């Protein structure tokens, strides 16, 4: 067996003293796409943020290894430069910081980390324009401050644009599909698919099976009350779409009385 790209074991995570993830395990190999579904508040964003290194989320026990190394020991920026990328569920507006400026600084930080020379401004703009076209982002938006005055869909496409520029090894997409119209959904999915390769892996958080028609996952997991309680192939997503989460709750209660509040 090759080393998994991402291997999470029995991860417990708390926010402000409240435990949100109660022993989550997940293994993602290079080349795979894993979808994570689950009801609101089950801990999906918590998982993606703790993997990206957000300080508000404290790991109280368990481990997460990335390319065989202890991911949790790395600063967020080192995780990023090592190829981990999180597309946020709620992209922030950051007044005063231009998209173009920040993205070039980010890209050059990645390149420096890999021992590559900086990309000059002209070359950068050329690449940026090309990728912006790919996700249908108006280049004029990019001179504006990060996400300032962007529509909901533009913000999501901007996340994907950043991903295309940084070409991560592990992409974590947190509900990138929510708020997108059907055309934008296809564009975003196409952007993600263009990066799929046997070296790369993706964890795609979504509430809707529809996205998975376009980004076809290898595995689907159900995150429920801070744990992965069910895993399957892409058909599981169809079943969830049809039946909701009630039946999973019932299954759990039957298997393990008292462990789940019904």
């Amino acid at each position, binding site marked *: 067996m090759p080393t998994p790209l991402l291997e999470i074991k029995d991860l417990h995570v708390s926010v402000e003293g409240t435990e949100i993830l109660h022993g989550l395990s997940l293994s993602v190999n290079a080349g795979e796409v894993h979808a994570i579904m689950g009801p609101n508040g089950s801990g999906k964003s918590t998982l993606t943020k703790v993997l990206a290194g957000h300080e508000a989320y404290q790991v109280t026990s368990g481990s997460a290894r990335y390319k065989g190394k202890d991911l949790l020991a790395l600063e967020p*920026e080192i995780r990023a430069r090592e190829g981990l990328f999180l597309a946020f569920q709620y992209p*922030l507006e950051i*007044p005063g910081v231009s998209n173009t400026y920040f993205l070039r600084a980010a890209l050059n930080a990645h390149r420096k980390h890999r021992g590559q020379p900086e990309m000059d401004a002209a070359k950068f703009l050329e690449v940026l324009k090309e990728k912006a076209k790919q996700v249908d982002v108006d280049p004029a938006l990019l001179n504006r401050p990060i996400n300032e005055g962007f529509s909901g869909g533009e913000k999501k496409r901007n996340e994907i644009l950043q991903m295309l520029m940084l070409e991560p090894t592990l992409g974590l997409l947190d509900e990138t599909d929510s708020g997108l119209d059907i055309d934008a959904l296809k564009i975003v999915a196409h952007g993600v698919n263009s990066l799929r390769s046997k070296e790369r892996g993706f964890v795609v958080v979504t509430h809707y099976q529809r996205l998975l028609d376009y980004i076809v996952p290898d595995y689907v997991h159900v995150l429920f009350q801070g744990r992965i309680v069910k895993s399957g192939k892409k058909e599981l997503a169809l079943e969830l779409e049809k039946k909701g989460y009630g039946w999973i709750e019932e299954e759990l209660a039957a298997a393990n009385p008292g462990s789940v509040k019904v």
Partner: protein
Amino acid sequence: MVATETTTDVLLAAFENSKASAGPTWLHVLRAQALDAYREAGLPNIRQEEWRYTPLTSITRQTWRVAPPDAGATLRLIDIARLLPVGMEAPRLVFVNGRFSTRLSTQGRLAAGLHYLSLRDALESKGPSAKVVQAHLARHAEIESEAFTALNTAFFEDGAFIHLERGHDLSQPIQVLHLNVASEAALSQPRSLVLLDEGSRAKLIEIHAGIGNAPRLQNSVCEIVVGERANLSHLLLQHEDDAAVQINMHRARVDKGGAYASRVFSLGAALTRNNAHCVLNGEGAEATLGGLFLGRGTQHLDNHVYLEHAKPLGTSRQLYRGVLDEKSRGVFSGKVVVRPGAQKTDAQQQNNNLLLSDDAQIDTKPQLEIYADDVKCSHGATSGKLNEEALFFLRSRGLAEREARSLLTYAFCAELIEAVKPETLRDALAKLVQARFE
């Protein structure tokens, strides 16, 4: 206050021996009145509301002398070049310790309608400027209520005199550099007049800077009149350090339909107190006042703004932002007064502060006093830390924490910098401010 009394006596003796004691009779009378007013009032103290947050210990703990005449004699052009944000091409008046330096100044090709010289030269001139000085000096700034203005009026040696005649439009910005250089504790008191006649337009860049480690106290007063439909854009760059104490009074009157824009960039000093006093004195007059103040170490930066709408249909915009690091302290006190009858006034005032450390402190006091009923006024103040989520976002894209912090801190300042014109000046300011956060 013992030290202060000594300083006054020292100043008096120095003054009587100096060339400044020459001059017309009306000025002698004015100086005597000012000295009386100063003696009467003494230095302000923290028991006075306007000075509550700004103790003057950095002034009172030592005796100040005027710098000897040869201080700064060895300064070369190259020493001042780096202090001029738009470079050596634009015309400049350079004052060293409050005294005009012919050697370091240049008038360039003097534009039509422009009188641009030292105040003392204007006073001594045979032309009309002497009369103009008499008509305006200390007619706008108050000596009775402002002790520092009184002190300046009693003892100033020189300063800039800028007078643009009716209808003239200056294409090039003009620069005034106040440079303080001394080998021991020295006080300088520049006194300037900026007068724009009806329908004229000008851009003024004023720079306060210091060289050396000896304590420097600058107590400057600048009186400004923006005539009917005239337009003055005034940028003040305070490029100082921990050896400096700066007390500044900018006193502006804007006549009917005139517009005055003032932006102050304070890069930090042991103590900075900037008083901006602006009266919209005619219908439809406009003022845009703003400033960025950056403190670190134990620096203290105080911005006091008084803006008065005396006549109807005036517009005023204020945006002041402070960035305070380490143990520095900031003060913002802004008062907008709308006089009875100043209907259709549109006034906005905003102060935002960014505290980069737990030990940094800001006292902010935006105030509105409205005596007219048909007006649109708003004000607000915020103080906070860097947005942790934004910081995380930038780091999650690969930016080092330091870089992310510096980017966000600069972003907080960006609005004030971006509004600066021309581009060369804006870029120079951006560099200076960026360098502070690296």
